[in-house]
């Protein structure tokens, strides 16, 4: 939608005045020339770098390993200089951009070393090395959300890829390794979230703190949804852990207790709510990991729906109406999957597919209505 049209709509909805509309338009007109100029500069730079990349790519097999490595090290050094210069001159985007690019270049350099010396390395080992050697400079130089998100995402991916191998390398019985793995996986979201609540990190790197909180909360919600799947398996999997069959339940209780204690210590109301959300999620995980729980598949749906209803409920104190939509949508889809589970063979027939499609459409329409009603009641919007 064009700016003029949008402004006219806002004006007619009495969101902005005519004077504001004119001021915005005249401000935007001033920047038009510069915008086109910047666009052309970007095209020229893209052509230069694109051409250079194509030349290198076309001759890649014929360039010796030594030249490739020297060129890459020089490129890294150039960006390290730009980064340092950006810091010395307090140029925000020069510093942040160079941090981001240098981090990426370190990863490609690791891959290139592996290529040149035929090291047969794996992606996970490359990422682990990259994370270890780049974390200090990314943390010290990168203050922007871009770098914080990049590092947090890299941390989660690296842990995900390496955790099993790291634990597998330990000389302990396999059931203890499994317990340790469950504990480590269950602890990552909690540690991320609690680190994000640290006042020191907030003062030092506010964007990193935000990124930790978001990643931690996201993983906790995803984990809560995922634990509902445990109801599909019988409790035999817990007995594979031998004398430690109670361990998954103990982890849930442990994290629930930690979050309840943190809730009483922390001052911020939002963090208190997040701690309560995490504690409730731990309790949901506990129900699925009890060694003596009933073995009923339907409980997977009940668990999921109840958990998402709780997530929707927490949207009110957190002031995040997007969570309500997410909860309503997921509950609808889960109930639809439950319907497919019940009527599986029918779905394979033509008529069954038509009925299923119609039911999904009706369910989504119903969900949309409920979403609007809840939001209107709770947040006073969009009725």
């Amino acid at each position: 939608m064009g700016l003029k049209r949008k402004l006219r709509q806002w004006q007619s909805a009495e969101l902005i005045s005519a004077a504001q509309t004119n001021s915005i338009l005249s401000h935007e007109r001033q920047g038009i020339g510069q915008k086109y100029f910047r666009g052309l500069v970007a095209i020229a730079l893209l052509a230069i770098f694109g051409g250079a990349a194509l030349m290198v790519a076309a001759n890649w097999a014929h360039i010796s390993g030594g030249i490739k490595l020297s060129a890459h090290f020089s490129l890294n050094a150039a960006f390290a200089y730009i980064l340092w210069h950006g810091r010395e001159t307090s140029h925000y985007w020069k510093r942040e951009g160079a941090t981001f690019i240098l981090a990426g270049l370190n990863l490609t350099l690791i891959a290139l070393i592996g290529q040149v010396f035929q090291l047969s390395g794996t992606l996970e080992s490359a990422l682990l090395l990259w994370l270890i050697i780049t974390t200090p400079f990314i943390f010290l130089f990168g203050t922007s959300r871009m770098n914080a998100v990049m590092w947090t995402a890299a941390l989660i991916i690296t842990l995900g890829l390496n955790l099993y191998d790291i634990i597998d390398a330990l000389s302990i019985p396999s059931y203890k390794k499994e317990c340790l793995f469950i504990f480590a996986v269950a602890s990552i979201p909690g540690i991320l979230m609690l680190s994000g609540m640290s006042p020191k990190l907030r003062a030092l790197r506010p964007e990193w703190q935000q990124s930790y909180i978001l990643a931690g909360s996201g993983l906790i919600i995803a984990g809560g949804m995922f634990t509902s799947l445990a109801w599909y398996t019988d409790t035999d999997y817990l007995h594979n852990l031998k004398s430690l069959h109670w361990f998954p339940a103990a982890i849930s209780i442990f994290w629930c207790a930690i979050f309840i204690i943190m809730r009483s210590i922390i001052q911020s109301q939002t963090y208190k709510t997040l701690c309560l959300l995490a504690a409730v999620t731990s309790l949901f995980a506990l129900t699925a990991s009890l060694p003596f729980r009933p073995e009923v598949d339907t409980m997977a749906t009940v668990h999921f729906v109840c958990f998402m209803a709780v997530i929707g409920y927490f949207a009110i104190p957190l002031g995040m109406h997007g969570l309500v939509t997410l909860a309503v949508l997921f509950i609808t889809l889960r109930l639809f999957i439950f319907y497919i589970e019940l009527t599986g063979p029918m779905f394979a027939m033509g008529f069954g597919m038509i009925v299923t499609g119609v039911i999904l459409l009706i369910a989504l329409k119903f969900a949309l209505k409920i979403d609007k009603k809840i939001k209107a009641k709770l947040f006073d919007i969009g009725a």
Partner: protein
Amino acid sequence: MIISKNKIAYLLALALPFIVLGYITLSNHHKHNSGELWHVEIAGYDPRDLIHGRFLRYRISWNEYGNVSGGKASTDALCLMRSAADPRIPTITQIKADQTRTARCDSLLNAGKAKDHWNIPLRQYYIPEEFANTLDWAFGQTKNKFTVDLRIGGAGTLSVTDLYINGEIMHKAMPALKAAYNSARSGERNKPQTWRLKIKDITPYYISDVQNCITYNIDWAHYGLEVAAYQNTPDLCLIPSPNDARTPIISIAAPDTNLQGCASIAESTPWNNNSWNRQPKTICQSAQLGKFMIAQSKINAAQFEVENTINNMGNFYSTELFINGQTLKDAMKNDAAHKAP
């Protein structure tokens, strides 16, 4: 000039990747240019998945040089002695880890969990993307010999340096290999060709409401070939019979045979476990056609044939099943018409 502590921390953080990656580069450069040099044969790790991304997945054929056994869990060491004929080629003895101190070897390789230990079977060699198809094809040709240079240092670990094809370093061997690959792909006799072959041992293999399968063997005896099952087989030369161009006359393509006259060559390569006669083949059909196929497979008098396409890689692909000279669909239609009142 006084540099603040804060500034030193920033400089160290920035220098850390350079220090670590520089050290890795220099230490690997040193490994590649020092230690004992050996030349060993390699084989595809899994011929069905040879080129993985930009990596050639291979294993070192230790067994070519001695009686070597054991995988990831092995703790034994390998003792390499230079052979009299070619000092780069080893003669290998597998020894216990506690014998390494007393063993008299030209090089010693220890077992471990890292890629530079001898007992890790899966290895990857980076290859330029433009070589991938040619190497994939060349690995399937048993006549090609793939070897690598190894450097073994004092730590008992190996580093792989260069890849050789038929004794020539990869980059030098590629133009000739590429030309052979292109000629194999474009050659007239290597065009995909479909043949109708007699089959035997038809057995119901998988029966369900939605799909039915049978297994069968090609009746090689019908074509005058006698090859025991589970034996490596030679390549086959197929030419059309004068009566019916779809029916082949098959002969064994010995290494010194002139293959120009062959319309198709069925190759025995690592892709099919070095045999065109190793495993029963399967044909599956869905719904009614599948049920009819299973019913027909139980009739002893029925004559079965399959149409097989031999592609430009020399592999067999089943395309169509024939019963008493008719396609399965036609046979079912005729059967239904025959049974109708």
